[in-house]
């Protein structure tokens, strides 16, 4: 724990030009400390603000100069007060000098730690860098920065600069900005540096990694291209989801007077036999794992299992290269790995670089079989893609994504879009409206990509830590709503929407939705919607667009042509409860008429359809009487006339009596319902 303690000094620009984003800076920094309080509570932190009216730092008292820089907090182990300090940053009055602030920060680190803790000391600068820094007494600004950077490297310090630009610095002097950018870039030549430019408050919140994770390799060893050619690589995780913190369970059983109570809750699992009589707990050594094999469970002991299970050898092997287009993006299964050449191994770095660049040129990817460690129970097959470094300092590397196995893919079939009725196909104007939207609602105009994942904070976690801080002070605080900055992540940017009003208007004009806002619908609503739905469907088949917006016609009688549809329409007319009764009665009569005068070739098909509709209708209305009555009459009729096909047809579609389990009022048991037609099924002639 202790060896990973980080020593960080925050250098915050609070000058007038920064006031617009200071509330975000406050949130970002307090989040940083909040997380440190939970995950790395022995880290040490100091806070320096610059651009203040007063000056208060060691250097100004010792050697003079270094004006307008205030040490808000000397370096100390993080605590709750720091959060409070960072949440109330002073608003400065003068334009600060970030280089002076860096020197003050370095001075604090050097005084406190001498040259110990190399690599654990870090400076974090947040500024907009739009104001010129003071000219040094001798030499150029560049020389000065160079000297500082060298000193920093010698002390084993890192610096991270977050430069807030974009809409906050529109009227700033371009020359000064370029000069400052150049000066900051010198740091990156000399020392461990990360400089990022952000242009929205939202990305400012995501600009600083608020939780430090010590990188751990997943694998160190050979990447085997062929038995002859191997490259030494280290594998890290490139993405790993930061999970919602696992909260512990709190017990309120301990009396309030007990000051030593831990309030912890232990979760215990007991395994009991289910035979009912003995409720005995089975000890762990008497338990054995079982796996399903059909209806049976096959017991397999761990020892047995170990003897026979799949045991691959550790190693990473290339199975082959293939065209990048063969691997679909949606097949990536998990978080992503990073393959780098063994650090310090120049030849391995060269080999990785050569392969990566060749792959890029050929648009190829490699398929790998990985076993990260000895004793791993499975292999991982995945795709290696090249990552050509844009930064001269950083070697080329690879990304690795896990691919699914044959068993992991579920081959569901979906109807082709072309098979849909014409009314579902967009016409030219609709297509044009969609094209406009796709092009105009642009999140990446000319290189300025909004919502870049690298700079997008997780709104849920932001909200949790803010609520946690709030609750620490005020135990009954309500969950805070998302503020405007975070809303940008979950809602479209209002500015972008306003700019493209015409596009949205066109969209509204060309597309029409008939929707039911409620998610869970009663049968009634379903009837209504189904009706409108079937209308649209019919219109698609016959005459495009002719009756799309036609209101449902009031059905007062069940006709001969479409009795089922008429029936459903009538059932859904809710203005008068009599409609239901009338609908059921009319359909019943229709069915009987169809039986006596079967129409056309498919004989009883229509009658059966009507019976099906009636059955469902009667179940929904919980009126089993009329339906069951009818069924008895049908059976009687068929027996008299010796009709075999109709009962068979009905039985095959499960159109038997409505049983008690389906409608409360029925007096038919499920058993009776099932055997209703079986009883009379004529014996097949031998």
């Amino acid at each position, binding site marked *: 724990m202790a060896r990973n303690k980080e020593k960080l000094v925050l250098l915050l620009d609070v000058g007038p030009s920064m006031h617009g984003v200071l509330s975000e800076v406050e949130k970002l920094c307090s989040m940083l400390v909040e997380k440190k309080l939970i995950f790395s509570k022995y880290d040490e932190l100091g806070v320096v603000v610059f651009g203040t009216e007063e000056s208060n730092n060691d250097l100004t008292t010792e050697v003079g100069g270094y004006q307008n820089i205030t040490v808000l907090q000397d370096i100390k182990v993080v605590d709750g007060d720091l959060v409070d300090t960072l949440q109330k940053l002073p608003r400065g009055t003068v334009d600060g000098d970030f280089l002076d602030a860096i020197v003050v920060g370095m001075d604090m680190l050097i005084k406190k730690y001498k040259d110990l803790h190399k690599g654990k000391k870090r400076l974090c600068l947040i500024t907009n860098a739009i104001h010129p820094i003071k000219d040094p007494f001798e030499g150029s600004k560049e020389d000065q920065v160079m000297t500082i950077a060298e000193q920093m490297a010698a002390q084993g310090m890192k610096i991270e600069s977050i430069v807030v630009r974009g809409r906050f610095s529109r009227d700033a002097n371009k020359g000064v900005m370029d000069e400052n950018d150049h000066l900051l870039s010198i740091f990156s030549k000399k020392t461990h540096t990360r400089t990022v430019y952000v242009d929205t408050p939202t990305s400012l919140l995501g600009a600083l990694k608020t939780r430090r994770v010590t990188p751990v390799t997943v694998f160190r060893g050979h990447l085997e291209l062929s038995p002859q050619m191997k490259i030494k690589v280290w594998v890290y995780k490139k993405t790993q989801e930061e999970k919602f913190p696992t909260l512990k369970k709190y017990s309120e059983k301990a009396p309030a007077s007990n000051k030593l109570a831990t309030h912890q809750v232990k979760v215990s*699992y007991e395994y009991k036999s289910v035979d009912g009589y003995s409720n005995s707990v089975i000890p762990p050594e008497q338990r054995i794992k079982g796996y399903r094999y059909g209806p049976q469970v096959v017991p397999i002991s761990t020892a047995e299992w170990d003897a026979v299970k799949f045991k691959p050898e550790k190693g990473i092997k290339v199975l082959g290269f293939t065209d990048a287009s063969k691997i679909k993006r949606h097949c990536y299964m998990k978080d992503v790995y990073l393959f780098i050449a063994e650090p310090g191994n120049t030849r391995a770095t060269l080999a990785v670089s050569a392969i990566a660049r060749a792959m890029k040129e050929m648009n190829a990817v490699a398929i790998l079989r990985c076993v990260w460690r000895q004793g791993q129970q499975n292999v991982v097959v995945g795709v290696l893609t090249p990552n050509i470094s844009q930064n001269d300092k950083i070697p080329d590397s690879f990304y690795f994504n896990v691919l699914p196995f044959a068993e992991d893919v579920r081959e*569901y079939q979906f109807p082709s879009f072309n098979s849909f009725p014409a009314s579902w196909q967009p016409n030219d104007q609709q297509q044009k409206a969609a094209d406009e939207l796709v092009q105009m609602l642009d999140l990446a105009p000319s290189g300025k990509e909004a919502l870049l994942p690298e700079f997008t904070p997780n709104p849920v976690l932001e909200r949790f830590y803010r609520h946690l801080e709030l609750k620490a002070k005020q135990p009954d605080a309500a969950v805070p709503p998302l503020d405007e900055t975070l809303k940008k992540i979950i809602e479209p940017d209002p500015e972008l929407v306003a700019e493209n009003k015409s596009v949205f208007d066109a969209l509204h004009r060309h597309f029409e939705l008939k929707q039911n806002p409620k998610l869970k619908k009663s049968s009634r609503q379903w009837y209504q919607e189904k009706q*409108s739905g079937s209308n649209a469907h019919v219109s698609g088949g016959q005459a495009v667009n002719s009756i799309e917006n036609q209101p449902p016609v009031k059905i007062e009688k069940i006709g001969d042509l479409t009795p089922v549809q008429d029936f459903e329409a009538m059932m859904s007319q809710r203005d008068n409860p009599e409609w239901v009764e009338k609908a059921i009665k009319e359909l019943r009569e229709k069915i009987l008429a169809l039986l006596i005068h079967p129409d056309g070739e498919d004989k009883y098909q229509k009658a059966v359809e009507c019976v099906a509709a009636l059955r469902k209708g009667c179940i*929904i209305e919980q009126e089993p009487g009329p339906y069951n009555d009818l069924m008895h009459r049908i059976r009687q009729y068929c027996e008299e006339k010796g009709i075999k096909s109709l009962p068979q047809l009905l039985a095959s579609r499960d159109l038997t009596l409505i049983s008690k389990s389906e409608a409360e009022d029925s007096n038919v048991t499920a058993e009776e319902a099932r055997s209703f037609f079986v009883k009379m099924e004529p014996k097949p002639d031998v």
Partner: protein
Amino acid sequence: MGLDPEDVFKDEEDDPDNEFFQQSESSKEYVVYLVDASPKMFNTTCPGNDQKDETHFHTSVSCIAGSLKTQIISRSYDEVAICFFNTREKKNLQDLNGVFVFNVAEREHLDRPTARLIKEFDCIEESFMREIGSQYGIVPGSRENSLYNALWVAQALLRKGSIKTADKRILLFTNEDDPFGSLQDAAKKDMTRTTLQRAKDAQDLGISIELLPLSRPDSEFNVSTFYADLIGLDGEDLAQFMPSASQKLEDMKDQLRKRMFTKRVVRRIEFHIANGLSIALNTYALIRPTVPGAITWLDSVTNHPLKTERSLICEDTGALIQEPPKLFQPYRNENVKFLPEEIAEIKRISPGKLRLLGFKPLSCLKDYYNLRPSTFVYPSDQEVVGSTCIFIALHRSMLKHKRFAVAYYGASSHPQLVALVAQDEITSAGAQMEPPGMHMIYLPYSDDIRDDEEIFPDTEEDAPRADEDQIQKAAALIKRIYVKDFSAFQFANPALQRHYAVLQALALAEDDIPETIDETAPDEEGLTRPAVVKAAEAFKLSVYGDSYDEESDMGKEKMSEASRKRKAIAENAAKDYDWGNLADKGQLKNLTVGDLKVYLNAHNLPVSGKKEALISRILTHMGK
């Protein structure tokens, strides 16, 4: 029966959605294997897999056995019955001659396959002649018609369940293309007619009859003699039938053991495109890691399943906690408490909605923007009419302009920023390879992305970069090991296949576990081809030079000066120990674990475990 009004009408014919999905929605399959057991099946042979001749009966039976073994893992809820005809004995509910329904104890005739069924069926050939017997069922002068009887029995077996929820099939294995060939004209005509009628009746009830014909090398099974009429083949289908049938037989034997999932909507979500414009989408899980199946804990004495009971116990008082407890996070030296509802509230951000934020070019979707398997979305007009139309329009635009949509998905447990990537339909030889729709890819947040590649920059010099020649050599090597037609999921999971094989061996009490092939092993043979070796050597020479010694170049900077010194001291000290003497006096326990490990390392022994384990390992090694 719970009545969900949405489901009540789901099977309605005029429901547009359902019309398209019907074929995939029947959830179960009922299959009757109908095997001809006439003497002809035993007399005729054809070359089998290992070049040995095997009887047609054996081919059929082993095919069914293989299929059953696959099915018990992939679709164990499907039900099967096995039925022989042209048998000496008879066993069926209708008491018809020449038909024998094979079954084992604790199982209905048409039921889920059990280990016992598979096991006993595996050795059916040994006892077949004794217990069931083979005999021609259709002979001149008799009114018996065993094929007719068999179809009748099969149909009766399949009476169970509704055709709406189950797919019913009869698979008929035979090598007799003219079953009534031996009969006289009138009798033949009559029997042909009644048999065809019987088959038609079955088909009218929604049962499909499939024929798996077995041919001899010298005379091909002639479908048109009789069976074309029985299974309803004509025209082009008829010509296509024989080649596809033999393929089917092969497929049945060599199916992958893979758990099948029925197509299911994971969630219905609302896709909010603009104010007042929200369409309905269904989400599907097309790709999810398959695990070996749930573990059921058993009592090792009785082999009865155990019930797991979870209880919460207060650590301070030992009292049992009934109600769902509060949660807490230690923070600022105190415990900040949360109600479960508060946690849910924190996570609740535009619940159940997918909100469109905008579009980006596909090049912005980096390879490392991935956290979990993607989810497939497909529009539905069921709840919001017009959804499909908008979806198709956007889908086409996104494909045309090569852009993806960024949206916020407010899933209740895991709200996240997602990328929606349009996928065009891809079909190959009439089969759908990629369905049309969009894939929802879960994007990482800033804290989820790590910059580990940036931690080792050499501060003074630029990172080494390969030159043009080295890249050319690499490209040459890549070309040598290039796979043209790779499919992203062509490999079976070796661990899973092994698991299934072990499970089968244990369940059926087989003596040896069948070998499983690790398809993911590299093509050793291919990699030793001279051309590949040459390319590899050339590349190696170009990047490593000719004096590269892998071991010496390894991790020079890895160990710091201090730790190397420490290690050297420890090793020197340990070398001086008189290990044999210490072991004899039982003084090994006085040494530190570090010292013990030095010995173990020196002798290439594992260094894991507690101190006692280390000591005992040393003693074993010394032979004491």
